[in-house]
């Protein structure tokens, strides 16, 4: 099944969640190890797609607890037992999960969402508003993201609702370290890794290697540079002119997502307007 996916023609018909899944799947390679936490339908779909196509040996710790599981499809939760079915190892989280993650050699890539992301890739999942103790919106909280941000991981953000509210100049609260104030701010604290890519429903962004400011990488088919910039709360750095279009998923990729990986459409859940 994995053999013909790359030569398959671009899908005639695909939705933006499928595009995002295919872009993220590209970031995970054979021999990588990765993991997911709760409400991670897009990342889980990306891992499953990678394993069915170019990265059959991608090692996946489902729900941060079940190694190399065999779910027949994405279930209604990415944290619950149905996702970690038929694992080859159950992880004791206190003893082992954080041992594996904190150890610099393993599980180097983490794919995650954030309610707010700023121009330096700092993330906020804690509060909207400036008074932390009486916020306008109390969000779930940082969970493990504050850890992942500081311990040398490569972070791949996904954002299903690219807007001036989610892509802000400065986060209301820094739940997790991105590039802090940019430049070499991370290095000065001894922090390795950091945000690599932001894949939204409009575009793909990376970070300038020196200034660490967010930079547009490609714009999804059907969107425009102007729309992306208008829906971003800060000035995006631009790549060479013209800005390329994000590559569409292939037909095989879309078929795999729809028929094998996620026939129930769980991946569409976090999108404000289901696509």
């Amino acid at each position, binding site marked *: 099944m994995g053999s013909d996916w790359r030569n398959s023609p671009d899908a005639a018909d695909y939705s933006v969640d499928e595009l995002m899944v295919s872009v993220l799947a590209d970031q995970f390679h054979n021999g990588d190890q990765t993991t997911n936490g*709760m*409400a991670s339908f897009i990342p889980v779909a990306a891992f499953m797609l990678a394993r069915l196509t170019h990265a059959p040996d991608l090692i996946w710790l489902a*729900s941060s*607890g*079940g190694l190399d599981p065999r779910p027949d499809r994405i*279930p*209604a*939760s*990415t*944290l*619950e*037992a*149905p996702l*970690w*079915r038929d*694992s080859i190892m*159950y*992880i*004791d*989280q*206190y*003893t082992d*999960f*954080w041992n594996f993650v*904190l150890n610099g050699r393993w599980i180097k890539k983490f794919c995650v969402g954030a309610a707010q992301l700023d121009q330096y890739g700092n993330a906020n*999942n*804690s509060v909207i508003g400036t008074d*932390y*103790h*009486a*916020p*306008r*919106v*109390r*969000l*779930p*909280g*940082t*969970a*493990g*993201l*504050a*850890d*992942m*941000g*500081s*311990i040398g991981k490569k972070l791949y953000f996904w954002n299903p609702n690219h807007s001036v509210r989610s892509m802000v100049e400065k986060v209301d*609260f*820094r*739940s*997790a*370290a991105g590039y*802090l104030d940019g430049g070499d*701010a*991370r290095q000065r*604290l*001894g*922090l390795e890794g950091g945000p690599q890519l932001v894949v939204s429903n409009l575009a793909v962004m990376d970070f300038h290697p020196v200034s660490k400011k967010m930079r547009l990488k490609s714009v999804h088919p059907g969107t425009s540079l102007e729309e992306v910039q208008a829906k971003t709360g800060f000035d995006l750095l631009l790549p060479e002119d013209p800005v390329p279009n994000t590559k569409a998923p292939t037909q095989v990729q879309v078929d795999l997502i729809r028929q094998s990986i996620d026939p129930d459409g769980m991946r569409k*859940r976090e999108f404000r307007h289901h696509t």
Partner: protein
Amino acid sequence: MMEKIKSLAEAITLVKDGDVVALQNMATQAAPMALVRELIRQDKRQLGLVVLVGGMAVDWLAATGVINRLIGAAVSMEQFGLCQQYRKAVEHGRIRVEEISETILNARLGAGARNLPFLPTRGGIGSDLIALNPDNLKMLDDPFGGFPVLACRALVPDVALIHAHRADRFGNIQYEPTVLWPDIGIMPKAAKKVIVSVEEIVDSDMLRRHPDRTILPGFMVDAIIEVPYGAHPTSFPPNYGYDSRFHRAWTKVSRDQEATTAFIERHVLVPGTQQEYLDAAGGKPVLEKVSRWEEN
């Protein structure tokens, strides 16, 4: 060995107003819900809650004014969304949140369990969490000349509330093979008192058949209570899954104060026994449905 079997009411009298209570939970998983309901029935006040990732239990405790502070990494019911009652209580300043990351919580509880003043982590460095918690988090130079670490002060909860698969009457606690979340791995070991509800109380000889499955020794446990489906509506693999209908019902009412009060009345205050609670939640058909957790 000392007998530890107690009634729900007796066990929860071990929790005092103002206590710091560590609660096992993980979004929609493994919360000792029967113990939580008893906290509400006994009208506890000003509890501080320690939770890794809280779910409906936190929402109920917020809705009923039992807790006024929370130390934890997240509160969410995952696919069922934000905990609205908790959210409102925080936004109105009725619950103060000391937000910490997972490795910080593990370090704080680990230090508490091991009688150390602190444990270090590199997680959270560069985030705003540190400035938020100056009493408990301090940057510390590496005495061996490397980059600094974050020292996380020991946290010793007054009580830990836990749900498990089985126990003997001496309080030896077993878990079925499953993914072990950090809260079961460390919270009860850090706490001064440990209260455990279990699916069933069995003879000690049953436990001796699988000594590798015993997760807490009886000498650490102060009270055990047999409560079948004691984690409902959260999941408790491999026994049962979460009750999605019940979660949706709560998320629907929890935005409205009157409906919330009625729901708490019906599902928490009125049922006098676990059986009455389960009947109010839908009885046998619901239990059969959650037992088929693979379908979710």
